[in-house]
């Protein structure tokens, strides 16, 4: 219980910690999801980081989000995966749902 309370506090904190690269913040948050008992003090060690300086040619202002390539997606959406996704559809799904 303590863990869950800490976790949500950490996400908001991580997001708004200027100087922490978003990728790094995400990594920390996701890792905590997997390993419940991670030492928070470790996080503070790499608090100060060098700002990203690499020249980036990438267009950082696009509409279409990132997708894995088609092959990965094809492997991901097997018949079972589509079956699992059926709870999101109003269809002949396994569990009958009343809510609109």
């Amino acid at each position: 219980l303590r863990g869950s309370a800490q976790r949500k506090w950490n996400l908001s904190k991580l997001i708004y910690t200027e100087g922490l690269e978003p990728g790094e913040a995400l990594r920390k948050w996701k890792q905590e999801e997997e390993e419940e008992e991670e030492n928070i003090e470790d996080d503070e060690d790499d608090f100060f980081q060098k700002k990203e300086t690499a020249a980036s040619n990438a267009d950082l202002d696009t509409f279409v989000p990132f997708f894995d390539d088609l092959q990965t997606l094809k492997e991901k959406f097997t018949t079972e995966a589509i079956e699992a996704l059926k709870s999101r559809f109003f269809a002949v799904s396994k569990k009958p749902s009343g809510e609109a």
Partner: protein
Amino acid sequence: MSAIPFQGHRNFRIRLVLATLAGKPIKITKIRSDDLNPGLRDHEVSFLRLLEAVTNGSIIKISYTGTTIEYSPGIIIGGSLTHNCPPTKPVGYFIEPMLYLAPFSKTKFSIVFKGITSSKEDAGLEAIKWGLLPVMEKFGVREAALHTLKRGAPPNGGGEVHLKVDHLIPQPLTMHALEMPKIAAIRGVAYCTRVSPSIVNRMIDAARGVLRGVGVEVNITADVWRGENSGKSPGFGLTLVAESKKGWRFIAEDIGGPGEVPEDIGVKVAYELLEEISKSAVVGRNQLQLALCYMVIGKEDIGRLLLNKEQIDENMIYLLRDIKKLFGTEVYFKDDDNENCLVATVKGVGFTNSSKKIA
């Protein structure tokens, strides 16, 4: 008032748009300063011109090298105008940010955009029509429409679209979307210009083949453009929309690039739609920015939006930091009963359309 500093070319449009809504001057430095070809791109300058045209009293200063700009926003006045988009970006790049400004304008927005109408990175016409306008409707902006007069595939374009937002509101409604919408149907549009009409059917068949498994009605319209209204280049594309009964929609789209056959596009877009559904809760990733920004500029009340944990990515963190810099508002995340989801809660800043203050 000293300008709020930003760096780099990330989120270029949304930073300028939010600065306009917040009425705060900003300064963006180091725009591609490490690049071989430093500074602003044609489309970014074109966007600045558009921004200047729909506002009154904006001051834009671009440094000699184009790596620094200062922007001091004026008030949003809207009006009727025509914008010629450069060939580097499609009209969607310019229409998307206008959706943030249009409802809060002094006069109605009625802008004709000319240029390329589709691309692989930016919003296509159907994505705006079926993906973004419905989100605006959820926030109380009705009577917004995008009319396709001519389609224009890249690279030569020649398209023409008309954005009309006839509904001016003082501020967006407060959002409370905590239930995962159920998708009732999948619709779509397969379009082509200056190529054989059989191409659209090939895309439709390929997409249907993938989506057959999900068990909802799949209805994809063929939209073949011929003659003068079909632009200067051959091209084809597909947009798929998963819609719920309550009006939430998820979209995925793509266009045919060099060497791609229609079947590839059909299959790819169908899988991407499934991926988008599996990674989202109430809105898709490409609608999230609009939804969050509208929540931030809402009434001084707590708005809530259910998110999938997968939706928290780098782009979102950059967006939330930009919002905080400009509005001083933070979005809080609460755990939801569903362990894959979070609830984003944000208190609106109490923004009011400056031309609607007397009421």
